[in-house]
């Protein structure tokens, strides 16, 4: 065994690892591991004090077991003990165990901090290195508190060893990421910038990472880094391949450092100083030139390293977007890579070119590669490369090439991987609409989409084609003719039936003159698809039929016969049944005039942002669909509006949901407009009666759950042995919709199941009547919410039912709080504080100081503020430790701007100030929940 284990091989460890290797099955391995764990546990618990070597050996074994995927819940103490050993090997294992296994909120941090403190003070560079590595890898808040003052000093001290400086730089970066408030900028910042000039390239590498992160947050403070980075880069780029000795990798001078420097420069606009700018341009040109020179080595490592730098240089050129000459050269270089035999290069070139396509200087140059990209779509074997090709085609599309690109995408769609079909469908639909000069082309394209990839055509896409056809009368006849032809196919996608049904119902008359598409033929064609379709499509077709009654009186009797048939009138589905009954009746009793009015052609849809675009944005995440016109909705905010009296008017309406009627409980749940059973007038509640008018006190624990919903919209609101109540809600401006799911956890039916929403006197609410809830079943209730004016009390959901003979009555608060109607607002620091000062009236301001219940984590707090609904304004407050938010509360009657500041102080107490009454009083209450 010692043959494979280097240095002071630990025999016991080697034996254990060999045993694991020899295990024939997973079971055997687990057995062996459990045996070892038991052994180590007893050794650690034993009376005999273990020497450093044994501790090290056992800790090493635990590390190995952890690597195999088993949780380790002991041994931490022994590892901490190793930290104070004077032997490097033991100390190192101790630190390794801690940085791999200890997470930042461990209770051991204090002990670990002690050991780190000793090692930092030891002046022994190897020990200091280990301690700094540990901080850099664990980086907890407590560590930041203990060392944030010390580390900048180590970093910039003249006598610090290079390797220690490197670790210190990354250490500081970690602490800045986790607790920026504890790493105040100071004298050290300018000296850190000068580390870019350090003789030692390792130090420069580490410092560049640190400076890049700091510069992103404090661009002004680190502005001087630009010229230093440029001169450093220039020295590297122009150096001979042997100048940098060990930092040269396969004849490429310091490739990783070059990449980092180019990244750092991407935090800034092009340098203003012409000398610096000239030097940078020279660097970038040199890098581009080198790509054309014959390689200094045939090794792939050489060209890879060179290309890593080249791609980063191109990113910088694209980022600056100011030198047409460089942009075009970059584009040509990428064009070469598009045909390179290395797949990696083709992938990266496509990706990079995608961003290049949005620059006005290089858009045309990118377009010249269209044939290559189309070819990539057809021939690439790797789906991720094809995906990039689709993205690039989308990005380079404009009016001149839209027809070609859309046609190629449609071609590709026939064989495309399932994983990317939906996205391609959305892209085609958007391009076809955006660049349609001729709407017949648009209609053809969308119908083709449905034909080729019907399953991937979402509702948004086919809704959109109908909107467009209805809004443009020049295309209606063509659309009717085309769908009619498309429907001739013996098997056509259901989405086509939907579009066809809708369009023929509206515009079938435009083609009825042709005997080949006479009214009866149109009707028979649609009806031949009817029985193969799902319920919603059949419902749509029934509407088409009644529209036909109006358009084509000559086939009225045929249609009436169909509606009258048993399969319609007695259909098991209530929706279909109801439509058949009502349409039949309508066609029988209404006069032609009334029919013509009721069944008039649909009015044009209001123009608005394409819902397809919204969907693609959602799919790809914001910011990725940048080349299309972004609709920025400026929300007018009334920051100086008068304070409203705090009347509570939330109107709640509940709509019966389809899943409720699927249970088939009685007639379709009638929307009951009777006032809710109010307990306010009836103080005498008969305790012996199980009359449903008695509202139960709030269920225990429901307040905790309530608090959790302040910042989120979905989750489990309540759960006991019988019942689980889940929520899904969405809010927009002053409106909201809440889906309440009631799950019966037992196997027995609940009888008289009556959920009721109770608001205060001013509220109206409607009740979902649902008399039984089967064992194991779930029903859903939809509540529509409108915030009429600001309010304090959340509505209460009361649920009553019988379970096994006993009456159950419980109440939970529905998490509808004022902040749900918050719309985030971005504003600059100046605006913010100007408004903040204006709101000085005591009625407009609420301040609250409270103790944080948990350690404050900046990221969690940020997430909470965003979840709370306000915009999180970064870099607004001069004190970086503070959190600042702004938003507008939308009610039906008014809009109220709200500003909030969370000022944590060192003792982890929090101060929250909210401005703008009256809702702020409640907001502060809620935001306490947020801040803990």
């Amino acid at each position, binding site marked *: 065994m010692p043959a494979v284990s280097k240095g002071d091989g630990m025999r016991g460890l080697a034996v254990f690892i060999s045993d694991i290797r020899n295990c024939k099955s997973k079971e055997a391995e687990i057995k062996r591991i459990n045996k070892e764990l038991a052994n180590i546990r007893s050794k650690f618990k034993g009376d005999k004090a273990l020497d450093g070597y044994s501790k090290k050996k056992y800790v090493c074994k635990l590390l190995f077991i952890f*690597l195999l995927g088993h949780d380790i819940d002991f041994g931490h103490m022994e590892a901490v003990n190793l930290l104070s050993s004077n032997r490097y090997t033991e100390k190192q294992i101790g630190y390794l165990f801690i940085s791999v296994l200890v997470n930042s909120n461990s209770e051991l941090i204090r002990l670990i901090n002690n050991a780190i403190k000793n090692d930092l003070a030891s002046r022994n560079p*190897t020990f200091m290195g280990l301690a700094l590595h540990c901080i850099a890898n664990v980086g907890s808040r407590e560590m930041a508190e203990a060392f944030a003052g010390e580390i900048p000093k180590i970093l910039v001290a003249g006598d610090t060893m290079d390797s220690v400086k490197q670790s210190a730089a*990354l250490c500081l970066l970690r602490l800045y990421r986790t607790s920026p408030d504890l790493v105040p900028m100071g004298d050290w910042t300018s000296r850190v910038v000068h580390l870019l000039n350090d003789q030692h390239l390792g130090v420069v590498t580490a410092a560049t990472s640190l400076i890049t992160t700091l510069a992103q947050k404090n661009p002004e403070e680190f502005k001087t880094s630009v010229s230093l980075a440029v001169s450093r880069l220039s020295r590297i780029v122009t150096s001979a391949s042997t100048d940098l000795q060990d930092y040269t990798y396969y004849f490429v001078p310091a490739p990783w450092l070059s990449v980092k420097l180019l990244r750092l420069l991407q935090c800034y606009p092009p340098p203003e100083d012409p000398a610096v700018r000239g030097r940078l341009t020279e660097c970038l040109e040199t890098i581009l030139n080198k790509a054309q020179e014959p390689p200094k080595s045939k090794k792939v490592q050489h060209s890879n390293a060179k290309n890593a730098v080249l791609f980063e240089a191109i990113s910088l050129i694209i980022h600056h977007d100011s030198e047409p000459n460089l942009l075009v050269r970059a584009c040509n270089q990428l064009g070469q890579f598009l045909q390179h035999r290395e*797949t*990696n290069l083709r992938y990266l070139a496509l990706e990079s070119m995608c961003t290049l396509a949005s620059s006005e200087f290089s858009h045309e140059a990118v377009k010249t590669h269209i044939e290559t990209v189309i070819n990539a779509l057809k021939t690439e074997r790797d789906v991720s490369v094809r995906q990039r090709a689709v993205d690039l085609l989308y990005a380079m599309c404009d009016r001149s090439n839209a027809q070609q690109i859309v046609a190629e995408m449609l071609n590709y769609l026939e064989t495309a991987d399932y994983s990317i079909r939906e996205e391609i469908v959305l892209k085609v639909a958007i391009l076809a609409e955006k660049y349609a000069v001729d709407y017949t082309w648009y209609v053809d394209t969308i119908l083709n989409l449905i034909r080729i990839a019907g399953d991937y055509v979402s509702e948004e896409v086919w809704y959109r084609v109908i909107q467009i056809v209805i809004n443009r009368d020049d295309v209606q006849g063509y659309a009717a003719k085309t769908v009619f032809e498309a429907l001739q196919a013996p098997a056509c996608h259901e989405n086509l039936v939907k579009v066809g049904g809708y369009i023929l119902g509206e515009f079938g008359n435009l083609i009825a003159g042709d005997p080949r598409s006479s009214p009866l033929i149109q009707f028979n064609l649609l009806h031949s698809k009817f029985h193969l379709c799902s319920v919603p499509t059949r419902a749509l077709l029934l509407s088409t039929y009644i529209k036909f009654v109006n358009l084509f009186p000559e086939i009225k009797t045929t249609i009436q016969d169909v509606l009258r048939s048993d399969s319609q009138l007695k259909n098991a589905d209530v929706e279909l049944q109801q439509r058949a009954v009502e349409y039949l009746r309508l066609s029988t009793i209404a006069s032609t005039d009334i029919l013509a009015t009721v069944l008039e052609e649909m009015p044009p849809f209001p123009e608005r942002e394409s819902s397809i675009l919204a969907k693609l944005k959602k799919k790809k995440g914001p910011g990725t669909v940048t080349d299309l016109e972004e609709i920025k909705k400026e929300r007018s905010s009334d920051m100086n509006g008068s304070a409203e009296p705090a009347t509570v008017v939330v109107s709640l309406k509940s709509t019966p949901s389809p899943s409720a009627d699927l249970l088939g409980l009685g007639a379709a749940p009638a929307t009951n407009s009777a006032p809710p059973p109010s307990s306010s007038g009836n103080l005498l509640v008969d305790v012996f009666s199980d009359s449903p008018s008695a509202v139960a006190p709030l269920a225990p624990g429901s307040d905790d759950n309530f608090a959790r919903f302040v910042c989120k919209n979905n989750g489990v609101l309540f759960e006991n042995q019988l019942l689980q109540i889940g929520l899904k809600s969405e809010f927009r401006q002053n409106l909201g919709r809440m889906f309440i799911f009631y799950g019966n956890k037992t196997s027995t039916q609940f009888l008289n199941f009556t959920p009721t929403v109770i608001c205060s006197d001013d509220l109206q609410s409607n009740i979902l009547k649902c008399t039984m809830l089967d064992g194991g079943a779930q029903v859903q209730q939809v509540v529509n919410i409108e915030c009429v004016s600001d309010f304090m009390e959340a509505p209460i959901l009361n649920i009553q039912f019988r379970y096994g003979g006993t009456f159950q009555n419980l109440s939970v608060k529905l998490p509808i709080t004022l902040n749900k109607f918050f719309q985030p607002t971005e504003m600059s620091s100046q605006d913010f504080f100007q408004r903040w000062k204006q709101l000085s009236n005591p009625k407009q301001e609420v301040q609250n100081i409270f103790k944080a219940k948990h350690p404050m984590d900046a990221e969690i707090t940020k997430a909470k503020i965003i979840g709370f609904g306000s915009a999180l304004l970064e870099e607004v407050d001069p004190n970086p430790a503070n959190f600042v938010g702004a938003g507008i509360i939308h009610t039906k009657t008014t809009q109220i701007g709200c500003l909030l500041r969370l000022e944590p102080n060192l003792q982890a107490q929090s101060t929250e100030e909210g401005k703008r009454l009256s809702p702020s009083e409640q907001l502060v209450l809620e935001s306490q929940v947020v801040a803990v």
Partner: protein
Amino acid sequence: MIKFFLMVNKQGQTRLSRYYEHVEINKRTMLEAEVIKNCLSRSKDECSFIEYKDFKLVYRQYAALFIVVGIDQTENEMAVYELIHNFVEVLDKYFSRVSELDIMFNLDRVHIILDEMVLNGCIVETNRNRILAPLFVLDKVAEG
């Protein structure tokens, strides 16, 4: 930023794992299994970068061992791809022709090497001699 650094063999056994952001142990095993499945399902002429959840995987294969690095969008794929090779060359130099067994039996040393190269998710040192310097000190102490 580098999110994690993994060495997994073709059988899906993890030989080295280093996470630069805290990940629960059960999520680690799941992630490692999925990552290796992704890599194994790819052929030689597919590219070495895989989009995976909200980050990218960069991988290289050495005999039966895959080295997979998870990165976010602030990293340069090609630079990370070569970082992997640089790491392997350092291992090769230290162990003189490194094998999977060397990595298993000397996990602590492999960790030291990696820690010298990547710290807190950032590349910190690329010079082979300097990466190995602390290890040589360590070995001298052990012999002496």
